[in-house]
Every structure is written in structure tokens, then in C-alpha cells.
């Protein structure tokens, strides 16, 4: 697989250099330079929102550092959690004196390192809470929802918790909102072609030219089934069937995210959105603030995910609140 890079081991640091040079609102920080934070720093008295995860998913995670979203982000190597030092740096840099919400996806390395970082920082008097993204319905049954992994739906939790923190809410309230946003969000993805970690000598998985895999994770974790590629409308119908069976949209309103995984043209995402919008209209579900684009990717993986974020008045207000980062702006 061909990639434009200089050296596999320099991949992450050169990405972060380029990201911060292109977007002066972001700066690299932390002992190893593996924290991205707002250039303006944390506002004293504001609850901080820190996140983190492995590289290879831009705009997630570092791309969502900005006003009304997250304050800091610890970043690891490709598909590896950030190390403990970077997690500690990210939490410290997000601390404006009123505590820090740690908001990240449910993956072993991320969880262990953020947990240890939190334990160490308790001694420094920094109060932290944790909310885990667990939106991927293909990664566990509804009974085992807490074991599910976090994927594209995490950005709705960023938006809600970030907006609440920007309002001046305290840590408990920001945490409550983060949990509520996670609870309201479900995602499922499909893959058409694999990705490859820069240090590996072959793609993460193989998928025949005429195949699709339903439910595959953003690191190539196995999905629910693999079969011949179907028309886009049939794929969207099954994704929505599964999402709606997993969560009743009792509010009658959703935001929908049709997300590209890295190598799928935007045009194809709009073909998917067209069907999804038509289908939700038939189900009498109103769409509010739809998102279509590459919001959470997986290197050069081809495919897409659909997230449904069921909103009530409180979440709708937070979703509409101003936000500004290099990859998502709400005026």
C-alpha cells in the first residue's frame, strides 16, 4: 500500500507539526509534544474537557480542539493509546481550576492510561471525571453496552460537553451532559477496503474487491457479516434498521452523521445521506443539523459510518451552541 510519508516512525510527529502549522489555533504541548491544546490556553474557572486516543483517525481526536468542543487532546502512535505522560499533560493543561472531564473512546490502552493519569493527578489536587464513548452497536449486544467501543458518535459528546463547559457549568454538570450525549448516540459502520498502519508491512485486513463488511470497527475490528457489495440504498437501509432497533428515538428528532472513513468520496456520502434522510422522513423522525463528511477516519479505509444522535431540547441547544475548531464550525 502506497503512502505519502518520510519515515513510518516520524508519521505522527510530522502530522502534528503540519496540523499546528496549518491551524495556528492549535499548538503542540506536553513533555513529548504529544498534546494538542488550544493556543489561547484554558480559561481560568472553566471546566476542562480532555480527550485522547491513537493517531490515524483525523479529524478525531486532535482536530476537535477548539472553542465549544474539547480543550486538550493526548495523542498516541497510530492506533495506539496515548502514553500516561501525555494523558497527564493533557489533563493538567485542561485544568482551569474547576476540574477536568476525561472524554474518550472505550479502548483498553486509552482507558488504562487515562485511569492511571487520573490516579497520579489526584495527588496534585486535580479533580477528574470520566465519560467513555460506547456508540458502536456492532461491537457488543445491548445487554453488554458498556463493552462497546467508541467510534464516530464521540464527536456528539465532544459538542455537548464542550458547549456545557463553555457555558460555565461545573464538572458534575458537564459530566452529566457528556454521559447523556453518549447515551443518546448510536453508530454503525461499513468497510469496503482496508487501511494499513505505517509500521506494518501489510494491510490490517483483506476484503475482496466485490465485498463489503457490515459493522467493522475503525481499526479493522471484525463486523457482523461480510458479503457481496450491495447498492447504497440497501446498505443504508440495513444500517438504519440496526440503529433504530437498538435505540427508540422517543424524542422524534435526531442529528445524523454520515461519516467517511478516509477513502470514500464525499459524493458517495451524499448518496448515503439522500437515502437516510428519505428513510427518516418516512419514520417521522425530524433531522436537525445533519453532518456529512470525514469526521472520524481510519487511515485510508474505504467505507462509511452512520450515527444517530437523538436530541431533546437540552441536547438540541448544546448542538446549536457556537463552536469552532479546524474541522467543525457552528456559528
Amino acid at each position, binding site marked *: 500500500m502506497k503512502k505519502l510519508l518520510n519515515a513510518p*516512525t516520524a508519521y505522527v510527529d510530522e502530522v502534528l507539526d503540519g496540523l499546528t502549522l496549518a491551524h495556528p489555533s492549535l499548538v503542540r504541548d506536553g513533555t*513529548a509534544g504529544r498534546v494538542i491544546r488550544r493556543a489561547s490556553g484554558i480559561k481560568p474557572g472553566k471546566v476542562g474537557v480532555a480527550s485522547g486516543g*491513537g493517531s490515524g483517525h483525523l479529524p478525531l481526536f486532535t482536530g476537535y480542539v477548539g472553542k465549544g468542543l474539547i480543550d486538550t487532546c*493526548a495523542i*498516541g*502512535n*497510530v*492506533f*495506539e*493509546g*496515548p*502514553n*500516561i*505522560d*501525555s*494523558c497527564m499533560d493533557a489533563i493538567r493543561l485542561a485544568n482551569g481550576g474547576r476540574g477536568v472531564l476525561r472524554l474518550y473512546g472505550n*479502548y*483498553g*490502552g*486509552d482507558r*488504562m*492510561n487515562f*485511569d*492511571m493519569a487520573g490516579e497520579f493527578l489526584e495527588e496534585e489536587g486535580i479533580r477528574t471525571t470520566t465519560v467513555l464513548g460506547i456508540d458502536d452497536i456492532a*461491537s457488543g449486544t445491548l445487554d453488554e453496552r458498556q463493552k462497546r467501543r467508541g467510534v464516530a458518535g464521540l464527536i456528539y459528546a465532544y459538542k455537548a460537553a464542550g458547549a456545557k463547559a463553555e457555558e460555565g457549568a461545573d464538572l458534575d454538570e458537564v459530566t452529566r451532559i457528556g454521559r447523556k450525549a453518549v447515551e443518546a448516540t448510536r453508530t454503525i459502520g461499513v468497510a469496503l477496503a482496508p487501511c494499513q*498502519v505505517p*509500521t*506494518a*508491512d*501489510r494491510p*490490517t485486513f483483506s476484503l475482496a474487491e466485490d465485498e463489503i463488511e457490515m459493522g467493522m*470497527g475503525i*481499526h*479493522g*475490528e*471484525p463486523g457482523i457479516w461480510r458479503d457481496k457489495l450491495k447498492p447504497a440504498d440497501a446498505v443504508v437501509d440495513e444500517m438504519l434498521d440496526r440503529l433504530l432497533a437498538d435505540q427508540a428515538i422517543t424524542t422524534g428528532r435526531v442529528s445524523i452523521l454520515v461519516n467517511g472513513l478516509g477513502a470514500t468520496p464525499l459524493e458517495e456520502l451524499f448518496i448515503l445521506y439522500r437515502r437516510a434522510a428519505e428513510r427518516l422522513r418516512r419514520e417521522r423522525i425530524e433531522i436537525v443539523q445533519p453532518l456529512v463528511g470525514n469526521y472520524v477516519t481510519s487511515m485510508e479505509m474505504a467505507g462509511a459510518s452512520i450515527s444517530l444522535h437523538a436530541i431533546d431540547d437540552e441536547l438540541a441547544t448544546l448542538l446549536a451552541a457556537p463552536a469552532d475548531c479546524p474541522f467543525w464550525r457552528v456559528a
Partner: protein
Amino acid sequence: MTAITTQHIAGAVSGAKAAMGDLEQVLNEADSKLGDGDTGSMLARLIDRLADADPAVEPSISDAFSKLARAAMGATGSSLGTLFATGLMTASRMTKGKDSIAWSELAPLLSASRDAMMARGGAKLGDKTVLDAIHEVATAVEGLNDQASVAQSAKQAGQIVLERFFNESCKVGRARMFMERSIGTHDPGMLAFVRLVDAVAG
């Protein structure tokens, strides 16, 4: 020699580093069946950092373990790497104030590290992870007080655990999603530990 010193620890790290030359792609290959195919590369990077840390110069084995734990933590945030660091931190705590320990103390050290890794990562024995390999080796070297016997028993135990779990399915973490597909494969973390024990035991 009846005691483990910082020289032994440094020797073990050097042995592990030498072994990674061949092991890196073997472990990447094992991981490509259950993960994203970079466990070998991650571990090679981690062990390079351990070697750079030069534990031989530390005044006590507790300091040597602590230095290695910090180096491991700095090298990666992957779950396997973090678990290795957790084990090393536990070893450091358990040997506090000791210049050396008897070979017979290796078993309780491994057992305590295994328990700390279980608490940190949430996996149980039988889930087909690195923990099962550590458990098997800890049990095999219990009561042994000379280097040669420890090395021989540890290598045998590693082979046994690999064979026992080869036809089991992974029950935890990312690999659990592969269920039946994980039968007939080695868990990359378990394989890594066993092969590194082989390399260090000589």
C-alpha cells in the same frame, strides 16, 4: 549464582532486544490475524527504550525495575505496553530497598505483577491473554532457587501455555470480537511473553 541483580535485569533486556530482530515480524504476523498487525513493531520500540534506559547502572533492582517501567510508559500507550509497564512497576514496589533478590523470589514477583495487570486491564485467567502465560511461568518456577532450573522450567511452561490456548478463543479486549476466528491462533501478547522468556532464558 543465587541472586538476581541489576546485571541480570540488564542482561534480560539485552537478550530481549536481540530477539526482537526476528520476533518483530513474527508478532506483527500474529497480530495481523487478531489486530492491526503492529504488536511486534510496538514491542520492538518499547524494548529499544528499555535497553536505552540501561538498568545495570541503578543502585538497586527496585530502581532498575522502576526505570524500566518509566521507559515502557514513555514508549507507548498501547494496552499491552501499559500492562508491561504495570508489571514492572509492581516488581519495583515489591523489591523496594533490595540490591538483589533470590531466584526463589521470582515466582511471587511474577504472581504479583500478574495480579496488578489483571486489576489494571480487567482480564481474567483463561481469557487467552498475556496473563495466562505469566501465570503459567510463575507457577512453574515456584520454589526454584537456581537460575538454570528457573530458565528451563520457564521455557517449558511457555510452550505448554501456547499449546493449551492455541485452540481456545480469545475472550477479552479487541480479540474477543473474532471469537471462532481466534481459535487456531496465538494471542500476540501471550506469544510475545513466551518468546521473550525463551530468548532471555537462553
